[in-house]
């Protein structure tokens, strides 16, 4: 199929030499031309400003609670005594749980879980208190579900605490009756106590934990896609030769002039994100401003480098964009925030190194979230710089594509 059919308003405008003064070539001319394209094409504005802002607001407001509070749980209390009711009240008082319903049997409660009415439940069989008083070790159970891992883990914690408290309550009452002091009772019931220090995120705030990977991941996704898009559309809309002309047939002028305006825009969006989460929402960032700024710069240039490299490898708009989509989407899994990379197959551990987001996360983890020197993540720094420099390998190829290739579907 012939390519002349793609009519793009810009082609027509450029024919007149609208935004570049007639005959002007060189870096500045390419730079201005690119700026003009960006600010007159709606899809650039949408993907550079509108959607990134939307993503930022989405994740930060979605997880605004920090931890899922008041998740619905049920109670199956066949004993119905002061003791079981007390345990129920204690469970209800926990931050993460909310006792919303009572059921007459385990089956009913299980059905309620399948209908999504509750996420877990506690079961007190008949005679629990009697057996407890008679020292015949009754057995209660709690049911929770890891079909939602976050909800499951948090409910498990609360339900288990209640179950353990039941035992401790009995022990404490017996010892008090025998006249032990509170200190003695504690030393007997819990001779070894665990002091948990959840370093830098003592609230176990999921917003701090997930947003700081998801939003940069999405920003990098847009850069991944827009870089080959901006290069490929030159071919698609038959502007490539004109671009070469403006660039004076120099591959560096072409590439830098084309990518630098995007770098500046993406960088300002990335810094806006940083300002929003660290400055306004107060996410932990003990690494300090310099690390945040450097990491933002590396994230933008590495993603651009990767996108341009993919286009240079296969100067077909569709193939390079498809590959970049694949890369961007897989990044969210291979970054290793939710499911750690060390737990994956060794082959995947290796593959994960080919994803800029993985290195972004390692640097973030080391030098922004925790306050370690950048040198501790030097491998990742080198990798990010290498990603940024990748287009150097294919600059010639990109120029060749602009000169000779036709848009392929």
């Amino acid at each position: 199929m012939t390519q002349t059919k793609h009519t793009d308003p810009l082609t027509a405008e450029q024919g007149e030499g609208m935004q570049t003064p007639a005959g002007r070539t060189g870096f500045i001319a390419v730079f201005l031309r690119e700026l003009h394209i960006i600010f007159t094409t709606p899809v650039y504005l949408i993907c550079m400003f509108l959607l990134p802002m939307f993503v930022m607001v989405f994740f930060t407001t979605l997880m605004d609670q920090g931890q899922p509070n008041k998740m619905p749980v049920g109670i199956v209390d066949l004993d119905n005594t002061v003791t079981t009711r007390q345990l129920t009240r204690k469970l209800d008082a926990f931050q993460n749980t909310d006792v919303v319903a009572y059921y007459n049997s385990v089956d009913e409660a299980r059905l309620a879980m399948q209908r999504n009415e509750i996420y877990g439940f506690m079961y007190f069989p008949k005679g629990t208190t009697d057996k407890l008083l008679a020292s015949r070790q009754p057995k209660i159970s709690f049911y929770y579900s890891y079909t939602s891992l976050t909800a499951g883990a948090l409910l498990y914690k609360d339900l288990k605490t209640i179950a353990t408290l039941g035992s401790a309550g009995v022990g404490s009452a017996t010892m008090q009756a025998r006249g032990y002091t509170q200190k003695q009772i504690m030393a007997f019931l819990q001779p070894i106590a665990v002091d948990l220090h959840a370093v830098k995120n003592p609230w176990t705030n999921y917003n701090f934990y997930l947003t700081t990977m998801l939003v940069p991941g999405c920003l990098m996704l847009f850069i991944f896609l827009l870089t080959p898009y901006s290069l490929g559309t030159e071919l698609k809309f038959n502007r490539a030769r004109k671009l070469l002309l403006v660039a004076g047939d120099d591959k560096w002028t072409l590439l830098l002039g084309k990518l630098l305006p995007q770098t500046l825009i993406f960088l300002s969006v990335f810094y806006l994100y940083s300002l929003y989460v660290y400055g306004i929402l107060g996410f932990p960032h003990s690494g300090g401003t310099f690390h945040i700024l450097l990491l933002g710069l590396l994230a933008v240039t590495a993603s651009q480098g990767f996108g341009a490299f993919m286009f240079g490898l296969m100067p077909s708009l569709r193939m390079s964009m498809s590959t970049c989509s694949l890369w961007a989407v897989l990044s969210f899994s291979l970054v290793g925030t939710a499911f750690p990379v060390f737990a994956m197959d060794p082959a995947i551990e290796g593959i994960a190194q080919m994803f800029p987001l993985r290195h972004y996360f390692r640097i973030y983890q080391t030098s922004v979230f925790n306050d370690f020197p950048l040198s501790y993540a030097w491998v990742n720094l080198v990798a990010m710089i290498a990603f940024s420099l990748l287009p150097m390998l294919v600059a010639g190829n990109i120029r060749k594509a602009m000169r000779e290739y036709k848009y392929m579907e």
Partner: protein
Amino acid sequence: MTTMNKFFNILRDTCYICLQELKNVFRDQGVLIFLVVVPLAYPLLYSWIYNNEVAREVPVAIVDLSHSHTSREFTRMIDASPDTRVALRCNSLDEARQRIGRGDAYGVVYFPEDFQTRLNRMEQTHVGVYCDMSIMLAYKAIFQTCVAIQGELNSRIQVKLSGNYTDRENEITTRPLDFQEVPIFNNTAGYGNFIIPGVLMLIIQQTLLLGVGMAAGTAREKNNYGFLVPIHRRYRGVMRIVWGKAMAYLMIYVVMAAYLLCAVPYFFNFISLVTLSQLALFSLPYLLSCIFFSMTLSAMMRYRENVMLLVVFSSVMLLFMSGVSWPQSNIPAFWQGVSWLFPSTFGIRGFVRMNSMGATLTDVSTEYRALWIQTIVYFVLAHEVYRFNIAKARHAIHHRLLRLRLQAVSSSEDNQS
């Protein structure tokens, strides 16, 4: 007879359009990638990534200033636990901290100097657990292991102090109220079992959005006038066009859905508690609503590649809105509302509960109804969008024709004068 004829005509046109659309899909490499290759390959990739399901042997650094029997026993038990291993022994907390910075461990277990002394004095003693909070599963593994070991050691100490005679007495002393933990449904706490069902469902919607959007962009680009619908004698009724196209996609996606929702869980031994008939009943409105949803959005695509820019990023957000990662009960009302726009929200919720929790169609009736409502709404929208596009195309052609005629008339007038 005429009604029969008319019906036959409609059927023939619909089938023609369906066949034409199928041909388009299989001829266009770009569309083929999204409608066939990605749904086939992605689940395999994801299943491979999450194949190990759980994080085992998380490296822990030990700082033992106590050098006592109990601290060493605690350390040995950490090493012996399935979820953790002792990777380092450091001489100070600061040394351990530096090693964490270098990624050699994800947590520190710290025994202060007086750890054993306090135990001997019959006082409560403390063990410090410091976790790197940047990986939640590592934190969970270390913390839960330490709590379990603490419980075990505490029981042993209690038994020693109680001076009981029988094992049964010991059991009752350490745990007067026994309890059982039952992780129902996903009983391995596996990450793959948790995330994959949602991802499988999401892949259906996202690939349809990409594939259908790209096909529509191509149709526009290939059309000389930038129209979505070609001018052809069989493409005359909006109903025929919408149904013809939808049937083509449905034919492809029935196969894909069978692969994604039945074969993939079978290959990788993911939880699958759903029966085939229930699954078929549930997927039908899901596929239809996804198809009509994609067709509605696809009409807005001007160029074929734009669809990637606008669709790919939404995958993660849609997964979060479905309530798999972040519990549904805790999604703010506003986003709950937004989530109702997407078939994936109800599709994922229903499928996860049927597939992973053994719910029946009655248990997911809310989601099932919502999907049928979405099917109807998006069908009407797709219909309207197509009708609007066709009307616009007709209008444009009409104008062009008029202009040509005027030109012809004026030129003939010129000739005459």
